[in-house]
């Protein structure tokens, strides 16, 4: 029996191609202030703090230590960090709240992809002995997955273009998105993926506040209750996986209770159009589900924060009353290797 925990506040930056004039801390601080102001909490009120970021994006060791300055960790705070997307920082914080050691948690994530070539940087995630030396980049690997999907008859290029158009059309309503409105579908970047099938490269940060039980109701008019959250990982070797399916997403969704009742909304962390197709199949999402009303990662994809943003966007719709039961998904690794699914609900209206 899980303890009732809810997302009670969410904030994110306006995601941009490059924030050269801002350090990671400067990019993050307004977002932290936003979620604290929304709940009326101070740093010293927070029971547990957890963040997600990557030294490889920052280009130096221990990069997350500087972000602590933005949090204002004085007097000292109970705090942890995952070298993962912020969605997993949220998971660690949710676990902490399950133990009863804390009633509130601040979760944040940030990433600046602009200083380097993120396609090349992500190749450093691959098996260091057999794959990384070949430098297969993230778009090339996603293209392998897309081609496998087309070969299996699960989609075609016009359908992928449709996913791209729908996402960026939806992003019209999202003032934080980097790409909004009609975007040319462009030339092939790596066949069969065109530029329009791929996420924008950009910098951004996000933060959420979690609270347990009655504390959540005190801090938020309509808390987004985490009814279930789970994450699963698949083998690393692409050759031993069926790239047209995402069994880890399906298993995480089962464990999170996603199939008990239908959801009305799904925020999926699908950086490539073809990956949305894979995820919708794995999650058995019907046409009646609103998928990525924020525009998703195709509209803004700040690496390390984009997964947490899916949870935040889904929660924000529950806060606003535009959703009653939403699924949020985050991914990590090449071709959807690792996946997290959360089911969020609002109190009955």
């Amino acid at each position: 029996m899980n303890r009732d925990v809810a997302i009670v506040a969410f904030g994110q930056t306006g995601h941009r191609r490059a924030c050269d004039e801002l350090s990671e801390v400067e990019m993050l601080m307004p977002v932290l202030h936003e979620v604290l102001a929304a709940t009326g909490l101070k740093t010293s009120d927070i029971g547990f703090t957890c963040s997600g970021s990557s030294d490889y994006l920052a280009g130096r060791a221990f990069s997350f230590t500087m972000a602590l300055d933005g949090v204002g960790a004085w007097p000292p705070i109970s705090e942890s960090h995952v070298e993962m997307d912020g969605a997993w920082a949220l998971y660690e914080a949710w676990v902490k709240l399950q133990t009863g050691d804390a009633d509130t948690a601040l979760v944040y994530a940030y990433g600046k992809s602009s200083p380097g070539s993120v396609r090349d940087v992500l190749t450093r995630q691959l098996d260091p002995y057999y794959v990384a030396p070949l430098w297969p980049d993230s778009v090339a690997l996603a293209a392998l997955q897309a081609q496998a999907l087309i070969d299996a008859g699960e989609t075609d290029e016009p359908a992928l273009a449709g996913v791209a158009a729908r996402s960026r059309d939806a992003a019209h309503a999202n003032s934080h998105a980097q790409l909004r409105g009609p975007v040319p579908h462009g030339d092939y970047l790596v066949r069969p993926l065109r530029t329009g099938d791929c996420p924008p490269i950009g910098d951004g940060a996000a933060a959420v506040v979690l609270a347990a039980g009655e504390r959540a109701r005190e801090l938020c008019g309509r808390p987004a209750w985490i009814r279930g959250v789970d994450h699963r990982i698949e083998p690393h070797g692409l050759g031993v996986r069926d790239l047209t399916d995402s069994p880890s997403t399906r298993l995480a969704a089962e464990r999170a209770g996603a199939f008990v009742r239908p959801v009305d909304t799904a925020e999926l962390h699908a950086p490539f159009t073809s990956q949305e197709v894979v995820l919708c199949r794995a999650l058995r999402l019907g046409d009646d589900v609103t998928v990525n009303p924020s525009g998703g990662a195709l509209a803004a994809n700040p690496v390390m924060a984009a997964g947490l943003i899916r949870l935040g966007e889904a929660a924000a719709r529950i806060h606003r009353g535009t959703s009653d039961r939403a699924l949020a998904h985050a991914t990590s690794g090449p071709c959807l290797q690792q996946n997290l699914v959360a089911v969020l609900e609002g109190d009955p209206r």
Partner: protein
Amino acid sequence: MSNAPGKEPVAVVGIGQTEHVAARRDVSIAGLVREAALRALTDAELTWADIDAVVIGKAPDFFEGVMMPELYLADALGAVGKPMLRVHTAGSVGGSTALVAASLVAGRVHGTVLTLAFEKQSESNAMWGLSLPVPFQQPLLAGAGGFFAPHVRAYMRRTGAPDAVGSLVAYKDRRNALKNPYAHLHEHDITLEKVQASPMLWDPIRYSETCPSSDGACAMVLADRAGAARAPRPPAWLHGGAMRSEPTMFAGKDFVSPQAGKDCAADVYRQAGIADPRREIDAVEMYVPFSWYEPMWLENLGFADEGEGWKLTESGVTELDGDLPVNMSGGVLSTNPIGASGMIRFAEAALQVRGQAGEHQVPGARRALGHAYGGGSQFFAMWLVGAEPPLS
């Protein structure tokens, strides 16, 4: 606490580590971590199928040149189809990783969790990996020693401790390591004179008062009460665990005895019902990468009053046969695969209360503290384990 159902007791039922050495050229990174994990499973008499989730930790990814290596290590650690979390909290990470794994059990999310930390430092040069200049930040100088030496000097000035105290710590820890088959340094011909005659690296820290650079991994299997009941060997029970962080530098920061360390220890003692740590704790594995950190942490952790820590060291209290043995395993001064060093402290504390520390066992140890720190003396992780289950 609102609607909190009370924590599930957490037991350490399996422990495994590699023989730590300067360079494990015979194994890949996957081979290294799998070796420690298999030893922990063997100790617990469990198989991969018994593990519900894997929590892995290590220090900066640059040390091996692999970004988020847990993705590549999922297969080697039997994590496929399971949840896998990757923790990174600087030098304290080995301890933090164990605490995150413990939370999964305490919060009743999972019943049996494999936790592991590693570093394969031979893949790169850690000292220079830690020396990257950061714009608008005070440079860390040459490696961690350059950062910590001034704080050691501040401790000496503040307390009037004799110059030789650091060498006593190193001499003790290196001798303790001779009783630990897993330790990296086995200096059979070590003498106090040799420690004191070793080259000065970062005044006042000499070469023999400095941690080595190691390849190694450490793993533990954590289980709930039911898992502990099935365990083939006596478990170590978690009585208290906490993490605390403070900023790297700010006006008023006490680098000698950081507030975050004091707060973290106080939280652990409160959970464990410890009123007098010096009397109630039987053995300590603390993170001492440079010799002088033993007396400094003795004060920070409440084992000695301010300014008095060096007297415990000097009078032999922290020797293996002393009244409060510290770093029975040889400590970080004898073995330092950075990301794993904190978990080795936690695991060695657990080995003591399980009575399975072999030649470096403290007879009758019932309660032991594992301690880790990292960053600019700003990240702290600690746990207190006991031979008996917690009362509540």
